[in-house]
């Protein structure tokens, strides 16, 4: 008898709650998700596909659906993975799999050896961000400023005339280093002493003038 009461009470409770929830699910339905946009804003938009998805947006959607790890994006690096971890409240995982102190891969840009280009337009089609210009049977060239370094154009080239080269440092892109005692300072030191020698030479030449 007691068991029966228990079953009835629980069943009633479950029914009530179920009904309420079911009603609420219909009544308070919302569409759209905010999170994908936020994830995509963090991804570096190289559209390189190294994550295994066809671009940054599909990857963002996969993360939002909890179907992908957050550490699959090499161009975003550990910094990007950390931001994703923050946003999603997940545990941070280093991208490279190695220690997180590892130096990031230098940024690359594609360069077409123009003498060898046959003008097949395959690389233009492969470039996800329209950074290669040219026309059929004409020489192609990469617009440096637009290239994301995704390397997607390298494989399609039938004559293998596309190289990936590190982006040279300019005054605009130069950054101050993290303040640690540099280990390679020996080279710099010899450089300076060489220059001091030069300065002393200059001094003696001046004295000669005087």
């Amino acid at each position, binding site marked *: 008898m007691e068991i029966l009461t228990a079953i009835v009470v629980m069943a009633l409770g479950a029914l009530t709650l179920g009904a309420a929830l079911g009603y609420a699910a219909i009544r308070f339905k919302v569409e759209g998700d905010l999170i994908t946009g936020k994830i995509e804003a963090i991804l570096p*938009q*190289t*559209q390189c596909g190294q994550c295994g998805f066809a671009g940054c947006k599909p990857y963002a959607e996969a993360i939002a659906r909890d179907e992908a790890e957050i550490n699959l994006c090499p161009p975003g690096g550990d910094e990007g993975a950390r931001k994703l971890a923050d946003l999603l409240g997940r545990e941070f995982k280093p991208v490279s799999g190695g220690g997180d102190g590892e130096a990031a891969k230098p940024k690359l840009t594609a360069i077409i050896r123009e003498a060898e280009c046959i003008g097949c337009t395959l690389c233009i089609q492969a470039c996800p961000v329209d950074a290669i210009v040219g026309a059929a049977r004409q020489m192609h060239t990469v617009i440096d400023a637009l290239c994301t370094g995704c390397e997607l154009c390298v494989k399609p080239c039938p*004559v293998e005339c596309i190289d990936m080269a590190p982006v040279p440092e300019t005054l605009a892109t130069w*950054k101050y280093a993290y303040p640690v005692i540099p280990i390679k300072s020996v080279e710099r030191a010899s450089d300076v002493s060489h220059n001091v020698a030069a300065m002393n030479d200059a001094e003696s030449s*001046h004295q000669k003038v005087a």
Partner: protein
Amino acid sequence: MLQKLFKFKGGIKPAHHKAESRGTPIAAAPLPGHLVIPLSQSAGEAAQPVVAVGDKVLKGQFIGKAEGWLSSAVHASTSGTVIAVEPRLMPHPSGLATLSVVILPDGEDRWMPLQAPDYKNMSLKSVLQYLQDAGVVGMGGAGFPSHVKMQDSAALGDLVINGAECEPYITCDDRLMRERAGEIIAGSGIIRDLLQVKRVLIGIEDNKPEAIAAMQAAVEAAGETTFSVVAVPTLYPAGGIRQLIRVLTGKEVPVDQRSTDLGIQCFNVGTALSVWRALNLGEPVVSRVVTLTGNVEQPGNWEALIGTPMNELLALARPRADTDGVIMGGPMMGIPMPACDVPVTKGSNCLIARSPTLFPPPPPEMPCIRCGACARACPQELQPFELYWWSRARQFDKAREYHLSSCIECGCCAYVCPANIPLVQYFRFSKSEIRAAAREQKMADSARARFEFKQFRAEREKAEKAEKLARAAAAQAAKLAAERDAAPEGESGAVGDAADAKQAVIAAAVERARVQRAETDSRDA
């Protein structure tokens, strides 16, 4: 002189070390063996070279054309021959090279014909254009083009002429004010007229009584009534723009605004002199006064040509044997030079010969104990230990929350730090990382836009193709229906032939390229 002065919080009082170099008058430096004139000498883009190797140039001749409004023109500092236009090491902490014009002097130091402009009857815009072409930039060190600072002159009330020279060791502005006060006042007068301001405040630290007296005398001699020479208390960094404005006017420039938003514009005394020279004599900026001091036998001030290699210039002051490098600027904010032969630029106010005894290497960095000494010393009233904490951990968002962008990198915090932490270096690191991240974000956004557009295009093309195919198929079907009796084979065969032909062309090209590469490879080997 009876001006009410204000205070800013923080600041430090390091030993001045100005006595060494302030005693002797400014002397003209001899012509160096060659001149390396960097084309990047202003805050904007590098100037474009307008001379080629082998060209003969005269002193003051145009050699670099300004590239955009924030850029500034560059001139030959002496007469001679252009022997190279190539990237050379520049006086910058990066140790990067920039396009420079190398001139072999002919020894005559002959000016090109100079003609002073009739600036009083010119429009403001053309005066500013003239200043840009004369290469007038801030002589205090930052090298911000002066014409840009004069462009929005609306609603300006005060002009501040900065003669504070608060950094230890440096005395070039001190000497300049003592020896060329008249020109400086005249230049300031020109700026005042261009900007149409009501009041000119000349702030000079009170450890330079001779300069104050000279400037005072020059003001009286010129009969200027809008000028007041103000002795400000010696406290580093009283020469910082925001700090000087605070001391002189009591106004605090809000963090997200510029001084001009409060109706105040600020120029260095050296800049005022350059303006006077450019507009009264027609002389472009080809030289500047440089303090040579530090580990040298004969400290002093020299008028040096822009582009003089630093080691040749410093040799005039006879550096001692244990000198191991050069610092451009003062001991608080100066930049260690990547090499000793980098050229003097328009911003090189001081060269300090460095030695391990003069500036002993800092003791090893200890952990921060949050003692707060840096916060008490910070003239911007920041919390440097918090900035350090987050910068060290590379949490740049946090560093930004603690107003990293307001840091003026004056070095007060690192000066007082008991743990010897190179705080400024941490802040510079953080700032450049933040800048880089912003740049990358911008690039990523535009990449996304292009990617999405490309996808949209692909979709559209696909749709169009599908439509076309459908239409063609329909036509084909109709045709087939009409000509069911005729031979259907031929047409599809033709299509196949066309595809084959295209394949053959590509294969031939691939073959050609392979041969070509093999050739180049064998050549390389």
